[in-house]
């Protein structure tokens, strides 16, 4: 943990409002992006991001929470919440309609294509194991190094590389089968 994190954490344990607000400002966007890239819905992402920080406050209040790396703790919590989110979604028999598929201000065809492409990749991502998905998201979408991914996932770097390999292979198979099903 860096010194800044260390000081911030000490202040947060005293429920220092400024310190807590600074943590929110430092990490909110990163956590939002991390969740959005897996969930793909603004409202759901807002809820889940709020839930991450809610859990953070709860943990601090109960004398728990991060003691090594604040960033890792927040990403891990986000990861767990995304898993819960997927689990809940799985029990629902239909996905919600995407009413905001096209933005009238942009080229609707291009936007729709981009959106569909992202949706296909995101759907394929959902078929990975939670560990594989976490590694892929952190590495490729958040741009973190193997060392950082290893810290967040609590795994050795070798295991991170193996997960990355298996995840890409699984993703490749899934995307290939999606392409086969796509209408011409």
């Amino acid at each position, binding site marked *: 943990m860096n010194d800044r994190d260390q000081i911030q954490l000490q202040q947060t344990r005293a429920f220092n409002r400024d310190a807590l*607000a600074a943590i929110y400002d430092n990490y909110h966007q990163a956590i939002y992006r991390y969740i959005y890239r897996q969930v793909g819905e603004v409202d759901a992402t807002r809820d889940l991001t709020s839930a991450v920080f809610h859990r953070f406050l709860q943990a601090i209040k109960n004398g728990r929470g991060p003691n090594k790396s604040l960033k890792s703790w927040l990403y891990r919590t986000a990861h767990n919440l995304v898993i*819960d989110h997927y689990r809940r979604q799985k029990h629902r*028999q239909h996905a919600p309609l995407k009413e905001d598929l096209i933005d009238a201000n942009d080229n609707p065809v291009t936007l729709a294509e981009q959106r569909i492409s992202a949706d296909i990749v995101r759907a394929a*991502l959902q078929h990975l194991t939670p560990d594989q998905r976490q590694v892929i998201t952190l590495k*490729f*979408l958040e741009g973190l190094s193997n060392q950082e991914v290893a810290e967040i996932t609590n795994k050795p770097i070798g295991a991170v*590389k193996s997960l990355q390999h298996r995840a890409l292979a699984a993703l490749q198979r899934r995307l290939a089968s999606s392409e086969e099903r796509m209408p011409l």
Partner: protein
Amino acid sequence: MKTDFTDALDQALNHLQTGEASSKILAANPDLVENLAPLLETGASLQALRAVEMPSGQALAADRRDFLDEISAFASPPVPISFVARLKGWMDHFFPKQIPTPNVAPKEQRQMSALLIKTVLVFGMIFGSAGGAAAMAAESLPNSRLYPLKLAMENAHLSMADTPAKQAELHLELTQIRAQEMAELAQQGNTPDASTMTRLQHHLEQAFIQAAQTPEPVMAGLLLQAQTILETQAQNLGKFQEHINEPTHTALQKASQLLHQAGQEAAEGIEAPKVFRAHHSGSHPSGGQHYPQPGYGSAITGTGTITGTGVYSHLHQNRHNWQHNITGTQTISGTNKQHQNQHHSRQTISDTLILTGTGTITSAGIYSYQHQNQYHWQHNITNTQSLTHTGAMSGTHDSGNCNNGNCNGNMQSGGGGEHHASPPEAPSEPPAMGSGNNHNNDCQDCQAPDNTGSHPDNHHDDHHDNGGNKKHR
């Protein structure tokens, strides 16, 4: 070998992330091209997910504000949920250590004695001789003559709660009290009646409705309390397995399930407050398709179409103004539904319902209603239906237009009063398609249902004083 490839892949991907072209990376690894190329392509396809749709600046500001409010809420000491705890705190505040306690008593006994003396003093001052009755009523159970006084005191207490947060807390506390009453009745060898269950449901629903009206951090606190209380009470009621009769066991299990489900919903509400709020105080947009969302309470308004097969297991904490066409096989359970349009259905509807408005119900179905609330029935029902009515009914029951099969909506009371039912009967088995001329209606003035076919004008307008535990087939 595999580890070598894993390392080579990792290096290749790192190059790819720095913007290096795939062709160059592959050229540097000629022996691995066949295996490496598709994986690099897959890695590159992930770029499609890099774009992130951010919420509006207003929404971001609102989320940040919510977080800051939450800090304040967490920083302040929580309000104790127990009435006794609050009373003790209040009295300790106004009578700090003014009552000497004998040293001979054990520590706990001294504290309890002081609390008791203070309680008697306060009730004595406020109510005079009526204080004794009030105190006794507070401990009474639904089978006691003092119980109506207890309910009146609770209502008075509720009427003084002037904010949604206070209302939610009180309803939560009363939910807990209703569950405890059910447990105490079972311990005494008595079966909790349907009205106790109705009251429990009512307080639960109101707690969620009121909570949904509070600011985000307050709602989170309330839902956290709700989760703890509801899960604890669900476990308490679920423990009763032995030495109780079947109706009691059934009633406790049902209450336990309801509390457990609500506890889960509270937990989900903490994680997804906006979804919770939408389900308990918002509304679905008019028109369009509404997909089944099991396990949520909803306010559904407007006109729409529900298609497909699904389970609607709603903890309805709000009214359903229902103007949907429903097709396909559906299972609907919950409270407070207003049907105001056509139902093309093969539905199983159970639990507590409010049915109002005019509509047409067609096709075969099982309607197993536990009537614990108002029942305004003005539907035309065609084809084969099995209707089983059990439970306590109160309010005005208008009419039912029944055609064919087993349909009777012919109940009407004077309204206003509460009609207590004897313990509910087990729902009957559904009849076979096309059958259903078997009527067993204990309503005195009911017009005999016509079983010969569709005639929408067949209109009942009957009265009954005790509408509970009716079974119509």
